[in-house]
């Protein structure tokens, strides 16, 4: 078809063009479509129905018998009561969470569904929910104390083994190999006898197996970790204040990252891991339960490992150009955008030549921690961790939604304006964003 007179555009689904997107999204958390649409609260919105229903898409609403009185199955607050509805929905949500968490065996599907609505901040639920979603805590409540104990002592063992300096190591080696060794101390006079060293372990050793040599080689990584930790979230008192608390928080972050780097020689430490770790540690440290808050470091370590296991390939330089590396992930994002909004895709990639790598690299590798306010980021992560499709797929959908949300400005802008916009993404209503991301479900293009 000639590209002449009437360029045929792949039509944008009408729900995308609906006037509701241009109104500043101000409505609080709710599940039905925004109220500015002239529609009765319950049924789907007036524009031609999108492929799936606008409700939360978990296929089967869990057949939960013990639900507190009111809202059966659907929790739409579509009574049009505005703020009151929001307040009620929050209390609703908290209650639902408590019910879900109080079961003997937690139903993960139900928990995921609830998490996608956002974990309420105030109720101290987030640490437990995240630990369950990341698989740190088993679903059977009875096993929790045992599991926690096991994992935490494992972490202490790691610390003991990996964070000790070479002097200590050599001393321990000595104490093991030579049972009786005369300690030379200050008493007496005379020549000090010389002793042989164990296995070529001296500080200037250049041997590969030498503890000292390894220590000096790793000191580079440790310095890098130190620098990055100091730069994490400088605006937050928790990470960067002058108090001893924030210093100890920084030390905890450093220890976690160091142990991770030592246990994973393949990937070591890459800049950016500190950003992925920060929300985890923050949430666990601010647990209302004292015990848990005290072991936040150990919990955060294991959850960090778990979370990163899905995203490791993004950090591995050698895999950059491979099928699983960051480049291919970015391509998938691009394809996703093309599928849902070809006009925008064409404008970005072809007309203004904004290479998706320029903006989406940071979005993807840092799991959007740098794009939004910290508290918004936590909300976002609720969905990221909770969605049954898994964090990788959800992340791409959210990124796509981010692009679509500002499509008007993008379509109107040139290379510089668009890049500027995308690299410092404007503050936006997270619920709105997640709502759109929801609608983009479907098989990922490969």
């Amino acid at each position: 078809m000639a590209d002449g007179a009437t360029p045929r555009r792949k039509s944008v689904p009408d729900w995308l063009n609906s006037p509701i997107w241009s109104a500043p999204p101000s409505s609080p958390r709710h599940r039905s479509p925004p109220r500015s649409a002239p529609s009765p609260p319950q049924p789907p919105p007036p524009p031609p129905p999108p492929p799936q229903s606008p409700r939360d898409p978990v296929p089967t609403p869990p057949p939960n018998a013990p639900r507190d009185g009111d809202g059966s199955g659907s929790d739409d607050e579509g009574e049009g009561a505005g703020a009151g509805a929001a307040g009620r929905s929050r209390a609703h949500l908290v209650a639902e969470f408590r019910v879900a968490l109080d079961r003997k065996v937690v139903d993960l599907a139900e928990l995921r569904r609830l998490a996608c609505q956002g974990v309420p901040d105030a109720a101290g639920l987030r640490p437990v929910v995240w630990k369950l979603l990341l698989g740190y805590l088993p679903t059977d409540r009875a096993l929790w104390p045992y599991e926690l104990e096991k994992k935490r002592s494992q972490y202490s063992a790691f610390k003991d083994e990996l964070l000790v300096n070479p002097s200590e190591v050599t001393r321990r080696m000595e104490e093991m190999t030579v049972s009786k060794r005369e300690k030379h101390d200050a008493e007496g006079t005379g020549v000090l006898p010389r002793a042989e060293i164990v296995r070529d372990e001296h500080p200037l050793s250049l041997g590969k197996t030498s503890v000292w040599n390894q220590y000096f080689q790793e000191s580079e990584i440790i310095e890098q970790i130190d620098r990055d930790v100091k730069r994490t979230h400088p605006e937050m008192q928790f990470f960067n204040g002058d108090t001893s608390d924030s210093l100890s928080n920084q030390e905890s972050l450093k220890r976690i990252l160091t142990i991770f780097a030592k246990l994973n020689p393949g990937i070591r430490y890459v800049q950016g891991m500190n950003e992925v770790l920060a929300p985890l540690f923050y949430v666990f440290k601010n647990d209302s339960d004292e015990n848990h808050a005290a072991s936040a470091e150990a919990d955060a370590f294991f959850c960090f490992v778990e979370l990163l296991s899905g995203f490791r390939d993004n950090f591995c330089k050698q895999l950059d150009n491979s099928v699983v590396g960051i480049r291919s992930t970015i391509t998938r994002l691009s394809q996703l955008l093309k599928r849902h909004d070809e006009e925008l895709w064409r404008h970005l990639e072809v007309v203004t030549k904004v290479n998706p790598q320029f903006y989406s690299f940071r979005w993807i590798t840092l799991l959007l921690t740098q794009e939004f306010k910290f508290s918004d980021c936590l909300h976002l992560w609720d969905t990221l961790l909770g969605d049954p499709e898994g964090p990788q797929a959800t992340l791409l959908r959210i990124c796509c939604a981010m692009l679509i949300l500002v499509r008007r400005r993008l379509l109107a802008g040139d290379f510089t304006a668009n890049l500027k916009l995308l690299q410092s993404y404007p503050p936006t209503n997270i619920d709105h964003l997640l709502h759109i991301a929801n609608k983009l479900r479907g098989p990922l293009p490969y």
Partner: protein
Amino acid sequence: MVLVLALGDLHIPHRAPDLPAKFKSMLVPGKIQHIICTGNLCIKEVHDYLKSLCPDLHITRGEYDEDTRYSETKTLTIGQFKLGLCHGHQVVPWGDLDSLAMLQRQLDVDILVTGHTHQFKAYKHEGGVVINPGSATGAYSSITYDVNPSFVLMDIDGLRVVVYVYELIDGEVKVDKIDFKKTATTIHA
């Protein structure tokens, strides 16, 4: 865990051209926190080389040093230990333990490092240690021609110091160590 390198009596360029290659390959910057040098370097180039290994360098004056600004003795505190430094040609008889002990009492230090004899020695005496790192280049001394290149690396960790002795014997580097623990209640008069 502080690493302190103690060496001296290099006599470059008069009696030796350079440090042995095997020593040089081991001495890389970034590992050592302090260097104490007994003296007789003798020229500025050696001073610069040592400075490149570690910025914290302490030297005392040996009788052949060309830079006259070094002091005769020096004391410094590293961790829990007080270290004293002197070239040793001032202490007569050279290398005599009792005379060195006098110097140690005078400087009031736990570890006294001296040189001049070009022979490695480590004594303990009345609550302190006297160390002679020998000559790092193996240069001949006023006393003898038969000198093995040697130097000393101290690992100071709390109240304990591990002294690693590096010697070049028959072309091979031999490393030994000496453990010394300072009793916390030792009081110097």
